[in-house]
């Protein structure tokens, strides 16, 4: 088990390193990095200062070493749009809002997807199953940012049930969470449905029925527990999609999280901040993958010996 963890941790480090390499090269391949890093109104003294900070007068491999050394310490320089803030400081300041929204979205989507998925498996071929299919299909075809605007128009503008944007109490979170979680509802539901169908067909379910257990207990206790393992392994993918999806959702609802930060930074061409957000997001994405792999190896010993 230790060897497995060590191996996977090493792979994760490699992936984060590749990401840093991509960010580093992109800035340099596309011309003078100072043009990207500095805003248009920057003067010659700004150029000299940033050039010295990043060691741009040195050979490329030295530059990369400096970049990596600073990145490891979480130093991505100062933001250009938000004066007086370090890029990394901005990310840490905004991250809680994003995690809050993503967590709530995950909760909402599981609460919707689990019962619908189970029902559509148990009542295969009935109206419930068709409803589930339609939800899954719409989940794949609705652009999340448009869904957000439609929800905002119906429930915030016309009905006035929720505020249109911003962060506050729970009523501020409901529309963004549905927007962010919508795609996940479809994905989780399909997974639950297919693994439920498999479990419903197995011998121990027949046995528990013969034993005289109520159908309710058979489905919601015995089957669901076994069927939940497969969707669990997709948690990493879901977490990743929620993180990247937050970029779109936050900019629709002006939710003051990291996603909105990165979009504003891209518009202002504040490369320092974009860089910091991307590395942090990639790190979270890759770490979640690692954690789920370890969890899964713990649950299913066969994986460790592959």
């Amino acid at each position, binding site marked *: 088990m230790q060897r497995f963890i060590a191996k996977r941790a090493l792979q994760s480090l490699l*992936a984060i390193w*590749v*990401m840093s390499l*991509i*960010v580093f090269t*992109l*800035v340099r391949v*596309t011309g003078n990095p100072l043009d*990207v890093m500095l805003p248009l109104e920057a003067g010659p003294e700004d150029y000299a200062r940033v050039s010295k900070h990043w060691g741009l007068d040195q050979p490329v491999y030295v530059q990369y070493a400096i970049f990596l050394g600073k990145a490891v310490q979480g130093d991505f320089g100062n933001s250009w749009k938000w004066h007086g803030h370090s890029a990394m400081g901005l990310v840490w300041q905004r991250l809680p809002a994003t995690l809050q929204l993503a967590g709530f979205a995950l909760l909402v989507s599981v609460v919707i997807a689990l019962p619908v998925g189970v029902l559509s498996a148990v009542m295969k071929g009935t109206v419930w199953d068709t409803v589930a299919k339609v939800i899954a*299909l*719409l989940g*794949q*075809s*609705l*652009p*999340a*940012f*448009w869904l957000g*605007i*439609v929800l*905002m*128009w119906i429930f915030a*503008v016309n009905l006035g049930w929720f505020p*249109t944007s911003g962060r506050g109490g729970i009523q501020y979170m409901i529309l963004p969470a549905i927007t962010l979680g919508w795609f996940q509802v479809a994905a989780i539901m399909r997974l639950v449905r297919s693994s439920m169908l498999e479990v419903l067909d197995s011998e121990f379910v027949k046995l528990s029925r013969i034993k005289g257990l109520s159908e309710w207990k058979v489905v919601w206790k015995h089957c669901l527990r076994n069927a939940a393992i497969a969707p669990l392994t997709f948690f990493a993918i879901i977490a*990743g999609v929620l*993180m*990247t999806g937050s*970029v*779109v959702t936050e*900019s*629709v609802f002006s939710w003051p999280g990291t996603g909105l930060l*990165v*979009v504003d*930074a*891209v*518009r202002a*061409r*504040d*490369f320092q901040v*974009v*860089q910091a*957000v*991307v590395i942090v*997001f*990639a790190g979270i*994405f*890759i770490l979640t*993958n690692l954690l789920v792999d370890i969890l899964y190896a713990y649950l299913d010993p066969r994986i460790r010996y592959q």
Partner: protein
Amino acid sequence: MATVTARTLPWYAPPRVAHAWRRVKRYPVVSLSILTFVLVIPAVFAQYVAPYDPLKGSLAKRLRPPAWQQGGSIEHPLGTDKLGRDILSRMIHGARVSLMVSMVAIFVGGTLGTALGLTSGYFGGRVDSLLMRLVDISLSLPTILLALVLVAAVGPSFSTVIIVLVVLLWARYARLVRGETLAIKERDFIARARVAGASHVRIMTRYIFPNVVNSLLVLATLQVGYVILLESALSFLGAGLPRPTPAWGLMIADGRELIVTAWWVSMFPGLAIMLTVLSLNLLGDWLRDHLDPKLRHV
């Protein structure tokens, strides 16, 4: 021969019609017709179908509601945006933009991925393991973020969008084609081609490639919808096509801040995206079931 139609023989019509309907039902008629009317016809004939210039508007006519609402007129059936540009015309030209971006991106990404997948699967060995490692990494990178970095570095443009999409798309084709190539290259007809003196390139292009075309077609169809969604999301974030391109994602972004006063600005382009992607997904599923049932997991 005179054709016997339902009109000449009315009493014989019902079974004929039913029969024809059953034959039609075997094809994805609804999605094909939605695609034709929402995507293909507008995209191909944009300048003939669109009533107005998508880039020119008159400020006197700004934010007119759609025809059926009070204050709307038939002149602008779906209303106008904040610069007085006709929404319908912009949507029609937007279909062309969507179709063009997805076609170019999928063609370039698919060609690159197919070439790499064929080489990787055919030769195997060190090239293969290196390429597959690259595919793994590329599939595990957070996609939208990668696009944002690139756009922050070089600025939004048509070619930036294409590059981003190609970087995101090639890996799936490479993995698919490599897997199929591994199976096909063990078959007898490949060994015979080799005995007959065919070169490696000829074997790959003339003997293996035709056998993976079906799978490629299915994957490409399933990806058109995905690419349209991705492109519109990027444009919405300001990381895709630059303004004033009539792209659906940009139109929705324009309507975002007008949602309280002018709902129609973002509503109709979104409907167009939804209908297009929905029917592309249905069509892709149908193609997969008919051409390549083993691709179910893709």
